[in-house]
């Protein structure tokens, strides 16, 4: 879970990492008020949950209150990679002597925590790593190992700092390491760490990503107003609906509605459709052991989507049961109705029972099954994918 810059800086402050004296504003008039009060050159920084805001024009320097207001008006109109700008962080403009980089993250290959530092800050650190890897310094340690002051001093020396700056930077690095541990972070980053003209080190930006799965042990974050959030840019209305229903869902630009079971086959099933010449309209993950109600909702998302011309369904009952699957599909057929062709296959845990439920329901209400083909273990899943592609192109051809 990514934090806003201002939230990250609040956490920096808790760990005694120096930050600019900034204030948050949600309207141009607030910005103007702050600018009038402070009466000096300011930076207006768009608060969005994405990188690259500088390049997108989301950070502006202003010289006076009038300038501040008009620039703020422009910024509040801005959308950065789909994120609307709702808040600006207003900070005094720093006089920069040098920009550095310091971050802490997880090295998943080696199961270590790693402190990364560079003498080249304020730029895309990935580019630095690619173009001048010698300018990146790394120091790894185990999650339960103490990261000592002398380790931090070593990092500071390695990025070219000297005398008092070494000491100051070491304290900042220690703070970052403690914050990383204390809040179950996946990544904490100061880019740039600015050495000011007045010889002070200050965190000019913050980038923090926390582990969603560990939020339960940090109730104090919610008290600070930091709650679990959706990290993607603007969601489509369907993605929003799915999100409200708790269903992992992404709109894609094809015409085959994907109703594939768990995330593993959710990803692979989309590939199968492409191999047979089709285009998936979405990615979806039912989660482990979905309830019939949830399955019915998943189908509603697909059936209501005008881009969907045919639906591909698959269920391999592991932790879930095929009778629940059939019950969910039948619930959908009865309550909502299927308006486009659908082909599905069930196997695994009690699949025969699922097929039996379908057959019974079909006998009772044959009209509901007009567009619905179901298969059991006898048909390979590849055949189902091919059939879905066929059905979709028949529909497209018929128009």
């Amino acid at each position: 879970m990514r934090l806003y810059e201002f939230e990250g800086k609040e956490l920096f402050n808790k760990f005694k990492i120096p930050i600019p004296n900034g204030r948050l504003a949600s309207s141009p008039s607030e910005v103007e008020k702050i600018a009038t009060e402070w009466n000096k050159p300011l930076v207006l920084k768009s608060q969005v949950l994405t990188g690259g805001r500088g390049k997108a024009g989301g950070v502006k320097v202003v010289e006076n209150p009038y300038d501040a207001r008009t620039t703020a008006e422009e910024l509040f109109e801005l959308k950065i990679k789909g994120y609307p700008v709702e808040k600006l962080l207003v900070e005094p403009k720093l006089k920069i002597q040098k920009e550095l980089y310091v971050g802490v993250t997880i090295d998943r290959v080696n199961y270590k925590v790693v402190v990364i530092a560079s003498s080249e800050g304020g730029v895309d650190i990935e580019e630095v790593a690619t173009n001048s890897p010698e300018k990146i310094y790394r120091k790894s340690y185990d999650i339960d190992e103490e990261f000592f002051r002398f380790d931090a001093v070593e990092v500071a020396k390695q990025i070219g700092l000297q005398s008092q700056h070494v000491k100051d930077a070491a304290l900042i690095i220690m703070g970052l390491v403690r914050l990383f541990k204390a809040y179950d972070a996946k990544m904490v980053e100061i880019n740039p760490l600015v050495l000011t003209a007045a010889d002070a080190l200050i965190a000019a930006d913050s980038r923090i990503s926390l582990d969603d799965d560990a939020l339960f042990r940090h109730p104090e974050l919610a008290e600070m107003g930091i709650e679990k959030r959706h990290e993607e840019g603007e969601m489509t209305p369907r993605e929003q609906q799915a999100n409200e229903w708790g269903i992992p869902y992404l709109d894609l630009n094809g015409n085959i509605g994907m109703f594939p079971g768990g995330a593993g086959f959710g990803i692979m099933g989309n590939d199968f459709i492409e191999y047979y010449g089709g285009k998936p309209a979405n990615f979806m993950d039912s989660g482990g052991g979905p309830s019939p109600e949830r399955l019915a909702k998943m189908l509603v998302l697909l059936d209501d989507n005008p881009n969907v011309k045919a639906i591909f369904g698959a269920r391999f009952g592991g932790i879930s049961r095929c009778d629940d699957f059939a019950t969910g599909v039948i619930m959908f057929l009865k309550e909502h109705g299927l308006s486009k062709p659908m082909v599905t296959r069930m196997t695994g845990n009690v699949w025969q029972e699922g097929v039996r439920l379908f057959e019974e329901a079909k006998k009772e209400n044959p009209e509901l099954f007009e567009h619905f083909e179901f298969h059991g273990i006898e048909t390979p899943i590849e055949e189902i994918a091919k059939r879905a592609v066929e059905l979709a192109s028949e529909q497209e051809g018929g128009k």
Partner: protein
Amino acid sequence: MAILVDKNSKIMVQGITGRAGSFHTKRMIEYGTNIVGGTTPGKGGQVVEGRPVFDTVIECVEKTGADISAIFLPAAFVKEAAIAAIRAGLKTVVVIPEHIPIHDMLLVRKEAMAHGCTVIGGNTAGIITPGEANLGIMPDIAFTPGRVGTVSRSGSITYYIANTLTDSGFGETTCVGLGGDPILGSTFDEILAKFEADEKTKAVVLTGEIGGVYEERACEQISNMSTPVIAMIGGIFAPPGKRMGHAGAIVEGKMGTAKEKLDALAGAGAHPAKTFLEIPKILKKLGV
């Protein structure tokens, strides 16, 4: 022979009195899995499915000789449970629940390395050695004893692959679910090394997916193996997945996309498959 678990394994269940724990204990026993007991602190002395319940892992090990544990507990308790099992000297610990905090798994992995224990998961469907033991939550319908091993991130993919191997007459030695969490107790290379050492396993099917770094780690192992490896990666056509961010990307380099993973694995000598149905064809060609 098989890897990790067989008919002689003595398996205990951590969280055996819980809803998921007791339900799956029953299922595992019905399959013929040798479940010897379980733990739930405060419920020592109870009996679940005819198996004794203990307060601690150490007691359970002393009384039953358990050598493998399956954890059926909420994610928040996994760190404690796994480390208790590792320190009690168990050889293998299987973490079924999902969403284990990353920092917890880093610590669990470190403990496991220090004690020579194999941790599988989190978010795994488990391990099955068909005809001998079904450890976890996999449906047994897909599996039959045979000569091909499988290792996959995802449970549903494991079922599909096993289903294909069963239908085509190859059958499976052992099927391992590595798990879907971002930080896993074991990696592809480690499981491949176990298959390589297993005489009965004539080929391995490895299935990975977009994101993460574990597939790439398998390359060196594959290039040193005499047992052929068939590789499938999900997400070839998927839009780019979530990255851990800049600093994470630096450490992990350019790893991550499905295409890059498949190319890397093929470069190391694995035989790429696009669909499940291609797998038996490749196996036949290889003379497995």
